[in-house]
């Protein structure tokens, strides 16, 4: 069966970079459909994306990255996509690697393929508190999921049908990347990491500033611990 692929681009005020990403994806993965989830941007993100003739969902107001990505999963689930790839809209994730994510999904027979910036020594610089947070969470999650995970905060991932269906119903709200892996593990979804390379961001600022790094760590840690005790009632539609 031919796979139906959807690239999900959550975008908040990305008018400067979004057109470039869309062109990049169209060139590298021409068979995939692209969905831009405009998360209540104040700028022309929606207009620029519409001119590129891709699917665009305009959320009525800013819901945060987690809810924006989940909207993408809902779209993918309802329109029968068998593979979804989540990708940042700020140009950090070069599109030529999307193919690697998708083929890793099929070759390894897993449900989620997560990109990791640390599996191979590519140059990646980040602030020290962030690096510590990333390191601690990867240790914690490797322990919980019993899979080797080196980078749990990267938002460059591919999902199969099973993962799409689950995440269309449950997806964490803010700072969702770490928690999403725990939830997936609790659902017995298999996760595999592959090395990726990321670019310096072209425009816009990181969603995580210096001071929110502390809040981020506490909040995500608490959420991860609680998730371990959570039970889910999957609604079949």
């Amino acid at each position, binding site marked *: 069966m031919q796979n139906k692929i959807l690239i999900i681009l959550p975008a908040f005020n990305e008018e400067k970079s979004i057109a470039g990403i869309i062109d990049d994806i169209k060139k590298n993965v021409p068979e995939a459909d692209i969905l831009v*989830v405009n998360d209540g941007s104040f700028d022309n993100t929606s207009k620029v994306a519409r001119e590129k003739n891709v*699917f*665009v*969902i*305009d*959320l*009525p*107001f800013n*819901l945060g990255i987690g*809810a924006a990505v*989940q*909207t993408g999963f*809902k*779209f993918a689930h*309802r329109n029968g996509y068998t593979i979804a790839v989540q990708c940042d809209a700020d140009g950090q994730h070069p599109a030529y690697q999307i193919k690697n994510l998708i083929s890793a999904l099929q070759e390894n027979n897993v449900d989620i393929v997560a990109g990791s910036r640390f599996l191979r020594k590519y140059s990646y610089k980040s602030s020290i508190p962030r690096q510590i947070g990333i390191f601690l969470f990867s240790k914690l999650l490797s322990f919980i999921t019993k899979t080797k995970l080196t980078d749990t905060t990267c938002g460059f991932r591919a999902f199969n049908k099973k993962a799409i269906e689950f995440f269309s119903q449950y997806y964490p*709200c803010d700072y969702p990347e770490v928690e999403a892996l725990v939830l997936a593990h609790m659902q017995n979804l298999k996760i595999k990491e592959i090395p990726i390379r990321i670019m310096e961001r072209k425009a816009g600022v990181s969603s995580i500033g210096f001071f929110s790094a502390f809040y981020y760590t506490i909040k995500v840690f608490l959420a991860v611990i609680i998730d371990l005790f959570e039970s889910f009632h999957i609604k079949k539609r």
Partner: protein
Amino acid sequence: MLRIRIIIGLISLFFLVIIFEAIRRRKFMEKYALLWIISGLVMLIFSLFPEILFRFSHFLGLYYLTVLLLVCFIFLLLILFYLSIAISQLTEKNKELAQEIGLLKEKFDRLKKETKEEENEAT
């Protein structure tokens, strides 16, 4: 002692009237008002029949007013907890509604475009 009882009694009566009036004007849902009404009534009972509270105050070794404040504090905690849960649920529902609006709008725009193209082909 009598003075403080009268003050507390008046405050709780005033309080109950305000709650009642807010519900009557449909500004306050009964669901959320219930805990407020109960706490108002408890205050009123304590000012009318202080004997109940005296037992507590003897047992805990506290004064009348302190016990009353303690009771109020517990009620406030309950109300706040209830409101936090209500807000969380509303936030979740709000998110789902917003997502649904986005998805439906996208579908609507796509269908509109398709019908337009079909019409153009027909003519």
